[in-house]
């Protein structure tokens, strides 16, 4: 069973993607329309007549203004995205640290995974170092092989195999690991519990989790489940990976993440590009998304045919039919982003999304116009990132002599790394590895705080000096 559990992480790797409207052409079209609605743009245009004549001039101005508007938007929404990702990452880390601090099961050494066969209880330091390097090498090669296998399966459209794999892994996580977790929590707090109640709880938890993650469900619930399974996975890693091996694996995996996402032949980059070519979403079971994803399988529906079908229908029906999907997306503007509203206005003329219009629309038969990208403004973070961040912070809290200081320092370091990564994402606008910067900061701060700051703060606290 530990085999299957380890299958999960190697394809939940750090990748960060941001969904801008995929079609560059549609982007510029929207922007040129947006220009007419935007007053400041009109001020920048010296002569308003250039809108009607002088086409080349127009296009040039459009291109420049595109870039400026893009930057504006990225900065405006960038801060929001950062917060949207801070909260789940923080929650995951908090859950892991709380569990480590209270439940002793996860800090007890009960053997190792078969992926790390070499023990670290050796006589000499050199032997220990060698063993941990070998362990890390084995683990990383397993991860690489699994990732390549996943990419190959995806390329050759063996969706059934991938889905079966994912379903088995999430079944294992949701039922078995949470059963163990619940059992250990009960043991820690000495709570008496009967099997029937536990069976009921775990059954409900697992089934709702499977539905939320693999099919449809409320966004918050899906996010909560993804956080929970990341935390469970991270706890497994913390328990079963010996010390030096864990740190080495963290370091090597951030290097691997960098290579896999940025090199042209990297498996993760190929995965993301193939998904974008086919205009599909990546598997929802592997990615945390901050906005609504309605689709699990876009491969069955032909997006092109749908777009043509939608254009043939009457205009007023087209945009309102999109409304039911986007209603859950964000709570502002009645569920529509500013960009989306402007796009809609430009296509069909201004329509206000009032409760009456929404009610009228919901009475219409909904044709599944799901090909219009529902996740316009969301930021996505791979679950592997959550897991490895939590592993770092969890290991820091479990094994550091500086205890809470070290934990806090690693936490801040990881969040700042995430900030920087999101900044780079806003600048480069393509899938980026989320692990390297954060893990590097985290590791540096862990070792520095544990060895340097800890004695200093101890001495200061002893004498009650304050800095």
């Amino acid at each position, binding site marked *: 069973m530990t085999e299957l559990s380890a299958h999960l992480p190697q394809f939940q790797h750090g990748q960060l993607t941001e969904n801008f409207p995929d079609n560059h052409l549609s982007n510029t079209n929207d922007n040129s329309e947006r220009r007419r609605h935007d007053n400041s743009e009109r001020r920048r245009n010296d002569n308003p007549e250039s809108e009607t004549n002088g086409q080349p001039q127009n296009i040039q101005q459009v291109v420049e203004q595109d870039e400026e508007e893009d930057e*504006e938007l990225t*900065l405006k929404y960038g801060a929001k995205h950062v917060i949207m990702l801070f909260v789940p990452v923080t929650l995951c880390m908090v859950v892991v640290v709380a569990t480590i601090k209270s439940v002793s099961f996860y800090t007890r050494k009960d053997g190792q995974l078969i992926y790390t066969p070499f023990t670290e209880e050796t006589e000499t330091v050199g032997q220990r170092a060698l063993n941990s390097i070998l362990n890390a090498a084995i683990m990383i090669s397993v991860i690489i092989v699994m990732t390549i296998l996943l990419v190959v399966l995806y390329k050759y459209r063996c969706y059934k195999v991938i889905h079966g794999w994912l379903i088995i892994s999430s079944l294992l996580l949701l039922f078995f690991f949470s059963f163990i977790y619940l059992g250990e929590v009960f043991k820690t707090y000495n709570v008496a519990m009967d099997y029937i109640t536990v069976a009921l709880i775990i059954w409900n938890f697992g089934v709702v989790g499977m539905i939320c993650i693999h099919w449809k469900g409320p966004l918050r619930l899906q996010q909560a489940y993804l956080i929970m399974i990341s935390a469970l996975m991270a706890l497994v890693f913390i328990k079963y990976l010996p010390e030096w091996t864990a740190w080495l694996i963290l370091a090597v995996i951030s290097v691997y993440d960098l290579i896999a996402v940025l090199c042209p032949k990297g498996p993760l980059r190929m995965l993301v590009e193939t998904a974008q070519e086919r205009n599909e979403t990546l598997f929802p079971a592997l990615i945390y998304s901050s906005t609504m994803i309605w689709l699990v399988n876009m491969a069955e529906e032909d997006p092109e045919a749908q777009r043509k079908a939608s254009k043939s229908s009457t205009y007023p029906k087209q945009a309102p039919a999109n409304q039911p999907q986007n209603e859950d997306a964000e709570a502002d503007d009645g569920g529509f982003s500013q960009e989306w509203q402007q796009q809609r206005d430009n296509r069909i003329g201004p329509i206000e999304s009032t409760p009456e219009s929404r009610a009228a629309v919901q009475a219409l038969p909904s044709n599944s116009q799901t090909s219009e990208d529902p996740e316009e403004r969301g930021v996505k973070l791979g679950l592997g990132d959550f897991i490895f961040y939590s592993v770092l912070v969890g290991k820091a809290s479990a094994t550091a002599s500086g*205890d809470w*200081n070290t934990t806090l320092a690693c936490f*801040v370091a990881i969040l*700042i790394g995430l900030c920087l990564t999101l900044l780079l994402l806003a600048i480069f606008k393509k899938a980026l590895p989320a692990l390297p910067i954060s893990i590097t900061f985290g590791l540096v*701060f862990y070792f520095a*705080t544990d060895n340097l700051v800890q004695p200093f*703060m101890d001495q200061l606290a002893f004498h009650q000096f*304050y800095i």
Partner: protein
Amino acid sequence: AFFWLVSLLLSSLIWFIAVKASDPRDEPLQKGLLIFGVMFSVLLQEAFRFLYYKLLRKAIEGLVALSEDGCSPISIQQMAYVAGVGFGLMSGAFSMINLLADALGPGTVGIHGDSQLYFLTSAFMTMVLIFLHTFWGILFFHGCEHQRWWEIMAVVVMHLAVSGSTFCNPLYVGSLVPSYLLMAAAAAWAYLLSGGSAHNLRRFLLCKS
């Protein structure tokens, strides 16, 4: 918070090197080294506050250049406040959190002859430091904005004074009282610099619209 952490890291690195290079059995020397470490850390913290100011300045310029109406959505005063709070919270967290964790467990305070008010005074001292960091942030940034070097020097001197006063511990009256007085002064000064006045204060307290 991150910048404060980095400054703490560097200062403890220096201290660590100094300690390792010296004789561990020599008590007064160790204490002297600790004092040196504290002073150095204070200076480093202020240096990092300055660096953070530079970074925020650049960020504001970027925001202004890209905004539609020529002013940035967040002002430098707000940033000063946030920076101060970040510094303060981080410093407070690092000072208190291990104490709090230990306080959860069983034990007797001061059983070996130390002061029984250890936890209480630590809590008060931490609180005053957090407040002070917030006010110093506002003062410091204001001084940098308007090129008033004496304000910056005042912040540095105040910080050194507060840290220095803690060397009197466990004679708590020597450290807590001056720190609180300095905090009141810094609070009033920061309030005046942020545009407040006695009139504003009175209106606020009497809940006039």
